[in-house]
């Protein structure tokens, strides 16, 4: 398909122009990671919970066919309409056809990464439907005509000054007022009017239970509930991997989700939708969009265990310093980098390389996805399939030569250390990307090998 207009490295460079802001972004997300740690360490059973969650998801992936059939039958018994979409386009058409059947051209939507993945808003806008995102962070970026930069904290790339200016322009708040309390109140009033007047609400799905046909939606703001309980029609959209076998399994996942995401013991609302309210119509759209292909890739199927907590974003040294928009895909961060190549290898070939492979993502993942191993494996696949840029191929050939010739390797090291100490201008210049947005450490006088040989002589 198409190549991304700009790759992760180029987009990161733009994000890194404002050093103070990058530092703030880095520290803020690290603070969220620390809140997660505090919660995780306060439960002695934390690792048991991760193990259980991972094993439940293993079972789900190995029995998805039957669970989905069971879920569909139960949901239909509960009076819910169930739709299946093979891809994003079909998902968008299904949602649009429900809107058309009801003659509705305005709707509210709570957070759903799936609809971002399918580009639902753009599709509906083209077809004359107004969509209002009701999660505060999503509403902010929607007004600014930007995509979310984080799946849990959509506006984390913005400072309160930016939000103040955006609300001044769109909601008429006082110019220069950047008080979060004041701005949140303005959004509350603005969105309350939308909740009260829109006839159709769309929500995402956090978990869907095969045993009962119900689905669970978690929010802190209460926006999913305000939308769904006031609307005549509720559409819930889910990737098919959201299935859990039984209701009791929610106990494991609700203990892990908010603790991993924001360091809260649970989200404010965990809403269990089983049947439509009297007089209401309820639809569930089950989406594939590449998931069945990923399920067949033994090395990568574990990525389908993801519960979208974003703990891997908050801990990732690359994400924290490059920002969500540099990933040019609906789901950024380490997990996004292993999901995106499955959707479009050519367009997302840069993303598995946007990592140091430090492994922190795998260590915090509540369902134990081997994220950094998969990043490494995607690199092999991408190079084999011919998606590596020429510069990288040439560099790799150079490295292969150097590393297989010890004399060349030693000479190279010597030259490098000499240049760093005596002629830094030779390496610290615009031609060497290692020096952009980075201070280099002082070069040692001798290599480890030289030191070791000397030590043996003494």
């Amino acid at each position: 398909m198409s190549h991304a207009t700009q790759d992760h490295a180029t987009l990161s460079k733009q994000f890194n122009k404002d050093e103070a802001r990058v530092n703030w972004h880095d520290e803020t997300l690290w603070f969220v990671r620390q809140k997660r740690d505090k919660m995780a360490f306060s439960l002695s059973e934390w690792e048991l919970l991760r193990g259980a969650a991972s094993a439940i998801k293993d079972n789900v992936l190995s029995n998805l066919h039957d669970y989905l059939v069971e879920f569909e039958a139960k949901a239909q018994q509960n009076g819910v309409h169930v739709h299946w979409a093979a891809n994003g386009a079909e998902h968008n058409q299904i949602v649009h056809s429900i809107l058309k059947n009801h003659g509705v051209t305005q709707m509210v939507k709570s957070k759903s990464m799936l609809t971002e993945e399918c580009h639902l808003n753009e599709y509906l806008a083209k077809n004359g439907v107004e969509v209002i995102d009701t999660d505060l962070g999503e509403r902010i970026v929607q007004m600014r005509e930007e995509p979310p930069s984080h799946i849990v904290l959509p506006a984390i790339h913005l400072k309160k000054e930016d939000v103040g200016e955006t609300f001044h322009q769109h909601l008429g708040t006082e110019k220069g007022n950047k008080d979060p309390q004041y701005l949140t109140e303005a959004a509350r009033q603005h969105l309350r009017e939308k909740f009260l007047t829109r006839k159709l609400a769309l929500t995402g799905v956090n978990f869907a239970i095969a045993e009962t046909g119900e689905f669970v939606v978690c929010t802190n703001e209460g926006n999913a509930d305000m939308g769904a309980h006031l609307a005549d029609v509720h559409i819930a959209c889910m990737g098919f991997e959201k299935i859990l076998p039984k209701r009791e399994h929610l106990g494991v996942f609700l203990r892990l989700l908010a603790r991993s995401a924001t360091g809260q013991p649970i989200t404010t609302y965990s809403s269990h939708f089983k049947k439509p309210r009297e007089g209401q119509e309820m639809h569930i759209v089950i989406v594939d969009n590449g998931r069945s292909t990923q399920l067949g890739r033994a090395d990568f199927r574990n990525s389908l265990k993801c519960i979208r907590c974003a703990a891997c974003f908050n801990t990732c040294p690359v994400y924290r310093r490059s920002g969500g928009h540099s990933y040019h895909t609906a789901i950024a961060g380490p997990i996004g980098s292993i999901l995106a190549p499955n959707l479009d290898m050519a367009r997302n070939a840069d993303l598995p390389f946007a990592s140091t492979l430090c492994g922190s993502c795998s260590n915090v993942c509540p369902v134990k996805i081997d994220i950094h191993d998969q990043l490494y494996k995607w690199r092999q696949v991408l190079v084999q399939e011919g998606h590596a840029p020429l510069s990288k191929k040439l560099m790799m050939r150079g490295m292969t030569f150097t590393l297989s010739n010890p004399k060349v390797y030693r000479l190279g090291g010597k030259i490098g250390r000499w240049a760093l100490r005596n002629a830094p201008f030779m390496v610290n210049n615009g031609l060497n990307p290692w020096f952009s947005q980075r201070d280099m450490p002082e070069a040692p006088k001798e290599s480890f090998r030289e030191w070791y040989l000397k030590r043996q002589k003494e």
Partner: protein
Amino acid sequence: MKAVFYLFINGLKIKKMSRDKILAAIRQNQPALKPLPSLSGLNQCTFEAKEQYKNVLKSIGGHIVEVDNETEIVQYIRENYTQGHRFITTLPQFAPIAETNWSDNDPHDLENVELMLMAGTFGVAENSAIWVTEGGLGQRVAPFICQNLAIVLNAHDIVPTMHEAYERIGSADYGFGVFIAGPSKTADIEQSLVLGAHGARTLVVFLVNGA
């Protein structure tokens, strides 16, 4: 007429095609069956449930009011909420201070509710969440659309963790059920915590002690 019928059947077929295609691809690509793990031993908490409940609720922005009887609840409500505004409840014993006959109305009619008073089925100590189902809500939107929410919870009805919570829910049938933990909140503007996003701005839990 025939053409319309044909189109209708064709539409159904296309709809069915995606379903069957997706399910066939899943059946082909899913790995060999792996067993479900046991859920026993996942609660290793050592806290005292009621104390933990109170501490966690305070830490997430809720208020605890310990009471011995309904008279104390009435007194608290009279003293702490703006009188003259609309109060609603699902509990008939509070009819003297709140409307009780509203559950058949259009949900939009609850737009101006200042206080909603209801009973929680049970609470969860580890996260201070309270479980309520449709019957206890009067209307699904009621605990969200009100400016302030107050929940009466029996101090005996507190389970330690979510595992016991789902044991207690069991296979109960409901149209809608929700765990509510604290007031509605957001930190979407620069990670600054603000209480009162779209749902209730405050949450008071009346913890009823005694028998």
